[in-house]
């Protein structure tokens, strides 16, 4: 039995030119020898940093871009050779506020795309009502989209992607920029779609989301596959040692640089959380680094220190940080 999505040695490069009189040309390899497959009914995650090649891969799978080389098949159909056959059987949803007709109502947006996907006039009304109910927008269908919140728009995007009842759904960062409540509603919706038997390929930056939702995950960076497996397999496949989280105030870059050079420290990431700074230090397996890390921030105000088991995010940072 063939996989629902099959990607074999897929490559995509872009040629760019700059300059008016003396033009210089550059080739960027966005996707390089990428191979993976997604089985029927599976919720498959594609993770990677910005510019990793996730969206380029999805664009090739939904027939908007031709591969430079390699083969991609969706439902057994070559996306480069028979795009039309693929288009009618897949749905595509991307994140962000755009991609809807602002001046039209939610119902008219759906009606227009129903026409484009050849949804029969008889079933359109019922189908649109069902989908509005599914995405919790019933009663708002006559309102113009320009007044919708980001979460409402995103739910409407999903309804649009489901109009023709596609077998495969491509979700490109669907929860980006949505508040926690909206993101949770969307995740619940994605779970319901998987339970309804849809095959879903999801790209996201949110590790918790990937960990919660995905059956399997492919981590890519610089267009190449770094790891592939279930969230549990990914966590255990990366040899991560102790993880220490330090909450502090106004930690200078010199202190972060000092911690990076400590014996036993593998990676250090710093991020701002409200008025605090969160320092996440991954140690090498078997290395005890808590003492030396705390010594390095001895002259700083430390709010809280926590040691914990590695998460998918730690595995991701280890994979991408080491690539």
């Amino acid at each position, binding site marked *: 039995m063939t996989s629902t999505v099959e990607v074999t040695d897929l490559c995509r490069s872009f040629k760019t030119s700059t300059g008016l009189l003396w033009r210089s040309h550059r080739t960027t390899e966005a996707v390089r020898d990428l191979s993976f497959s997604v089985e029927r009914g599976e919720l498959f995650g594609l993770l990677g940093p910005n510019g990793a090649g996730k969206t380029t891969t999805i664009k090739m799978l939904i027939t908007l871009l*031709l591969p430079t080389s390699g083969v991609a098949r969706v439902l057994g159909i070559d996306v480069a050779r028979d795009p039309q056959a693929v288009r009618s059987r897949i749905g595509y949803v991307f994140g962000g506020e*755009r991609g809807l007709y602002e*001046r039209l109502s939610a119902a008219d947006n759906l009606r227009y795309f129903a*026409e484009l996907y050849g949804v029969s006039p008889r079933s359109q009304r019922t189908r649109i009502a069902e989908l509005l109910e599914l995405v919790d927008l019933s009663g708002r269908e006559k309102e113009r989209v320009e007044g919708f919140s980001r979460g409402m728009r995103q739910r409407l995007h999903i309804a649009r992607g489901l109009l023709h009842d596609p077998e495969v759904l491509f979700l490109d960062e669907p929860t980006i920029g949505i508040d926690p409540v909206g993101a949770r509603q969307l995740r619940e919706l994605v779970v319901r779609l998987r339970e309804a038997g849809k095959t879903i390929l999801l790209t996201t930056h949110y590790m918790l989301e990937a960990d919660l939702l995905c059956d399997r995950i492919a981590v890519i960076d610089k267009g190449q596959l770094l790891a592939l497996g279930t969230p549990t397999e990914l966590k255990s496949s990366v040899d991560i040692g102790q993880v220490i989280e330090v909450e502090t105030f106004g930690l200078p870059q010199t202190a972060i640089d000092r911690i990076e050079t400590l014996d036993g420290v593998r990676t250090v990431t710093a991020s701002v959380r409200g008025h605090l700074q969160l320092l996440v230090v991954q140690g090498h397996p078997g290395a005890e680094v808590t003492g030396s890390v705390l010594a390095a921030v001895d002259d700083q105000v430390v709010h809280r220190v926590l040691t914990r088991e590695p998460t998918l995010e730690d595995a991701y940072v280890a994979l991408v940080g080491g690539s």
Partner: protein
Amino acid sequence: MSAARIVFIGGLLSYRALFNWLNPWIFIPTLVLLPIFQILLFAFMGRQANLESDQFFVIGNAVQSASTPCLWGMTSAIAGERSSRTLGLLLASPAPRVATFVGRAIPVIANAWIVSLISFAVGAWLLRVDLPPSRWPAIAVLVLVGSVSCTGLALVLAAISLRVRDTATLANSMYGVLLIFCGVNVPLAALPGWMPAVSAWLPLTRTIEATREVAAGASLGHVGGLVLHELALTSGYLLLGICILRYFEASSRAKATLEVV
């Protein structure tokens, strides 16, 4: 059936979605008042300079007023897909492209026809141009022909504006070209030698000529040659527009030139 629905229902929905001049606060000043001001301006200049009759200016400017909704409407209805980031969704759909894009021309034509007829009627009334009621049906038909022919050219501009992005510059420039080259305010015979050669390849030139003849008493049959010539040119522009759209879609898949999502 599906293609027909995309042409008529899809065309109207996308036109409503993307042509933001349909707001009365923009529609009335831009598409109703401005053409009338243009008629009055040229008619009064003509009177001052003892040039052509008021009827000459009413016909030229009223027929040419169709170009505003055609050029801006068509380019907005197609290039607007890019700014609203719906182009990728459209191209990823299995919808037939010709039906999808040409369908948008129908509301554009209807809008242009209405705008042109209003300009004609109000301009003639304000300047006391005496046109017998029996000539109005033929004039309405010719104004429709002019709206169709201008929409053909607008489809070409709309297709180009998908790639060059600067919709307003293209539409503004073409409006000026039509105003000068099509015999709107200056008879073609009075233009420098090379200019009528350009006029021959532009829409509206023959419509304006035919409308002036009909207003002067000729029958529709008498101007049939001009109408057929105009429609043949329109077909050429429509075909060119569709070819450009198809080429851009194909090259976008190969070179990512439309930044579709």
